[in-house]
Each structure stands twice: as C-alpha cells, then as structure tokens.
C-alpha cells in the first residue's frame, strides 16, 4: 500500500477517482462503475459524497464511512484513506451484504 498525503480539487461533476488520475495519482480500480470494491476508500472525517452513480452501494457503507471513489462525487471537503478494498469487503461480509471477491 502506498504512503503519503496528497491534496486535490475535484470538479462538481467529476468522480474522485477520475480527479485523482488527472492529478497523477493512480488509485486502484477494476470495474469503474461502483461494483467491485477495488477502489474502496474510507472517510477519516465527516463529509458528503454523492454515490448515486455506483452500481452497488449500501446505506451501511455510508454509515461506516466507506466510499467508492470511481463513482464518488464529493459534495464537501473530504479526508480520505485509500486502498481499503479488503476492509470494505470484510465490512460487507460481516453484515451479510453482497461483496465482490475480486
């Protein structure tokens, strides 16, 4: 897992993953439509995210602070910890929610 901090601006209609890529930050992602959890990240402070474009995102994900940057449109300033695919998978499985194994 990479280390370090980065700060970036995300346009209103941009996805977080897309903005990171344009800023030279290569975040993981496989499906790029909010299904596979490869890009999963976690909010380190309260923030607003529109996950309406994700194919599979649950209220429980939001409550636990998990987001899917490939389909996440920030609606406030965010502090995000990336590379949380396994943590999000375990969160889903622990609650009996569907989770990709990939």
């Amino acid at each position, binding site marked *: 897992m990479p280390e370090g901090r980065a700060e970036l601006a995300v346009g209103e209609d941009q996805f977080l993953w897309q903005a990171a890529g344009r800023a030279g930050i290569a975040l993981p992602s*496989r*499906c*790029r*439509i*909010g*299904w*596979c959890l490869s890009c999963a990240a976690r909010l380190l402070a309260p923030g607003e995210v529109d996950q309406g474009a994700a*194919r*599979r995102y649950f209220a429980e994900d939001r409550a636990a602070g998990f987001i899917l940057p490939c389909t996440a449109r920030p609606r406030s300033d965010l502090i995000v910890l990336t590379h949380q695919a396994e943590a999000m998978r375990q969160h889903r499985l622990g609650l009996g929610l*569907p*989770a*990709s*194994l*990939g």
Partner: protein
Amino acid sequence: MAEAKKIGYGDLSGRVGVEEIRARGVDVDKLIRKLIANAAAEFSSTYYYYTILRMHLAGYEDYKEICEDARLEDRAHWELIVPRIYELGGELPNDLPTFHNQAGCAPAKLPDPPTAVNILTLLLESERCAIRSWGEICDLTVGKDPRTYDMAARILNEEIEHEAWFIELLAHERDGKSIPSGHFRRGEPGEAPYSKNRRFYNP
C-alpha cells in the same frame, strides 16, 4: 524459494500442486478468491450477453454475430476456470445468487434505452473490466504458478480481442469513424482460439 510443505505418502489432506506454488510465493487463498470472482463475472456475462444480443439488437446482424462470439468465448472461459478453482482446493458457492454477488465485474444488464450505442458501450466496458481482472491473475501467478498463468493469459488474449471488436463497432456506430480491430471474423461462433484448445474438453 521456501521449502514446500511436505505431503506424506498417500496423504489426501494436502496437494503437492498447491504447496509447490505456495512455496513459490503465491497467496493461494487470494488466488482462489479472485478466480471465483472472475468465474462469476464470466458466468454472468454469458447470461447477460444473451439478453442483450438475442433480444435487443434486432436489425444489427453483424453486431449480433460478433456479440455471440464474445458470449460463447466468455462461456468457454467460465468452463476453463472452474476446474482450476477445485484443483487449488477451492469451491463454488452452493447458491447461484451468492455466486453472482461475488463477481469481480458488474452484471452487463440491458441499458436504458437499449440502443445499439448504449449496448456496445456496455459490452466494451464489460470487456475492459475482464482485461483488468485477468491481468491481475497474470500478475499474481507469473513465474510462480504456470498452470494458472497459462489459463489466465489465454483468457486475457481473448478479452483483449473482444475489446478491439467493440471499439471498432462503437466507433462506427456512435462516431462514424473507422478504428479497425485488426481482426477478421472468427472461423465459427465461439471458436475461442486461445482458451478452448481442445473441442469438448471439460475436465
């Protein structure tokens, strides 16, 4: 290379074929998990390609044929992956919805509206997800697990060709442009030149 765990004479509780690749550095549990996710995605795509192809591309006979090639080859991939999962000591869920939910790529559900452009876009992105998925398996196994690597590389070859087909078709249909795939049609539907190397072979 670490020494492989010893499997005793006549011992059925372990597999030399697994311990040897584990000793070479393969995370076998992770590999099994990813193979199940990829198997679910291939299985799911063969289902959804039916709904898209057979029901909603009327009037686009050439698109239908090419989609059918991709569907049959994805089915061949599914059939190729499953034996390897069991060889490695894994197993498929005994429940189809559970299996579906474990897929590493999203189901290719019919887009709304189901225009040729929307369908081709969805098929293109579906193939791209498959390319990323099989690239991951190649990365996990290269130089360590030749059997899984060989299988993954064969599948990856076909997924890359499928992407080229859908780029060509979408460029034509959506943008009125020519972006050749560089390929001619398969000899027959579902030929799967890389992954189905022996007709009717399904261990």
